């Protein structure tokens, strides 16, 4: 299995996935595929090397799994991508546009959406309000517009509410529209967070344990959504501890340990890799 991230390796894997493809130059097809790339990214916390010279690439229309034992640096990678943390070295590129160093809000507006492991819904706000917050380019968020162009703001609100309700229905939470988020069950909150991402129309979706705490039927629906998002051309990255889930939906898997990318490849290969099993299961 190839380790490391040379251009041709990515192409090779992708050609394996998609069947032989007649494309232009390798770099062009690479660029078309790759939505988000980390190049030699390092992050230190005091003496601890949380992320050590990591290079990752996430492709459009693909679901990439990010696995590894606790403390491997997976969540830190998410934090680096979303701008919560700034890398000490290396670059993060979103569609060839350097985003490391940009503030979180800007990275989000560019199209990066994140599902948090600890959910992070807005507890004292209603379910519908949580969704409405995700809607992009709300002119009513400017107080002057809210004050003086009330009609246009109300019109936009109406449209946004319709959209939001659509997604609420999708995760089967339409009954809970007015319920405060803190009064939902954990599983429901997770669904709300997922719906929030959908309502936000993000192109890159970073999902940190999307199925934890959700019952099996809903899990199927969630995985279904994730697949359809990828089919629609979104870039999906999933951190998961449940290997079955990883097997089921990932097109590609990265295995991290102690801040480094140890190996990457197709799910079956990675999960069969003895080194991975050793690190995970201590065998």
């Amino acid at each position, binding site marked *: 299995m190839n380790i490391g991230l040379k251009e041709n390796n990515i192409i090779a894997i992708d050609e394996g996935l998609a069947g032989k493809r007649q494309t232009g130059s390798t770099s062009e097809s690479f660029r078309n595929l790759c939505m988000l790339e980390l190049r030699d990214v390092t992050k230190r*916390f005091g003496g601890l090397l949380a992320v050590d010279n990591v290079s990752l690439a996430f492709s459009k229309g693909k679901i990439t799994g990010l696995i590894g034992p606790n403390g491997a640096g997976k*969540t830190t990678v998410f*934090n680096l991508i979303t701008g*919560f*943390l700034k890398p000490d070295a290396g670059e993060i590129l979103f569609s060839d546009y350097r985003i490391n160093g940009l503030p979180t809000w800007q990275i989000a507006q560019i199209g990066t959406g994140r599902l948090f492991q600890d959910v992070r819904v807005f507890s004292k706000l209603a379910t519908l309000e949580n969704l409405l917050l995700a809607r992009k380019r709300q002119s009513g968020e400017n107080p002057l517009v809210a004050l003086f162009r009330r009609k246009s703001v109300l019109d936009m609100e109406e449209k946004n509410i319709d959209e939001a309700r659509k997604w609420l229905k999708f995760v089967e939470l339409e009954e809970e529209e007015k319920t405060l988020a803190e009064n939902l069950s954990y599983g429901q909150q997770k669904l709300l967070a997922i719906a929030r991402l959908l309502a936000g129309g993000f192109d890159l979706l970073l999902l940190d344990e999307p199925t934890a705490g959700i019952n099996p039927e809903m899990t199927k629906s969630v995985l279904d959504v994730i697949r359809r998002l990828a089919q629609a051309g979104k870039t999906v990255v999933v951190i998961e501890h449940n290997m079955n889930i990883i097997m089921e939906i990932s097109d590609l898997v990265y295995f991290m340990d102690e801040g480094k990318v140890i190996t990457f490849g197709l799910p079956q290969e990675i999960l069969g890799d003895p080194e991975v099993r050793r690190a995970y299961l201590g065998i």
Partner: protein
Amino acid sequence: MVLQLLANGIVTGCIYALVALGFGLIYNTTKIFHLAHGIVYTAASYFLYTFVRQLGLGFVLGFLLALILATLLGVAIEVFVYYPFHRRKASLRVVMIGSLGIYIFLVNLIAMVYGNETKVLSPGVATTFHIGSVILTKIQLLQILAFIILFSLSILLLRKTKLGKIIRALADNPDLVTVLGIDVRRVRVYIFILGSFLAGVASCLVALDVGMDPQVGLGVFLTAAVAVIIGGVGVFEGAVIGSFALAILQNLMIWRVSAKWQNALVFIILIFFLLFRPEGILGKRRRLEEA
């Protein structure tokens, strides 16, 4: 002239330092912004007044009784207000507002019972001592002495006793302490005893020096709180350094500019520190990473 101002600064610094040490003990360990510390301070003076002027007890006895009562007041606030808040896992902001409520209630109670005017405890001319070109009154020397003794004892307690170790551990990592099975409830009471006692001493000495009025506690408290922060949160000695720094700067300002900007100066210094050196003078620079 400068030396006199410096000396005055040191005297005032001693008072601030006692109050700041007390507030720091409480704030660093419980993280509670104990606004009511200001009224514990004020109450001590008025207890002293009651015992000495209204009940005719001697100064020494009155002093001791006032200290006991002030300490009890501080402990009562912990036992009947703060600890219940702690049990309910109330947020620190809620506790702070509660503390503000206590302050408002008690300061008005005192004003109602004793009146708003300044009361003086030792009328007449004070005995003065000349040290070089500097003149200090007996009471001022007592203030310096009290600080030296109490500060030394505090450091001894913090460094050498088991309670001191627990206090320092609490200041560093509150959660760890509960894991170690230490009776946090009792430790908190001890902390409030110490903190309130120190404030009480400072208050009574000031009362004997210049007198008292119900409003003065807030100003002293805020200066002490600023001293704790600019000295370095989590570092107990920092409160002392911060106190002297503020007191001396205040007196320099009296010399160079005017006395009336003292309060503003304290907060200008605070804001300066918060924006440019938030860890304070003695604090360690901690890079706070998100998430």
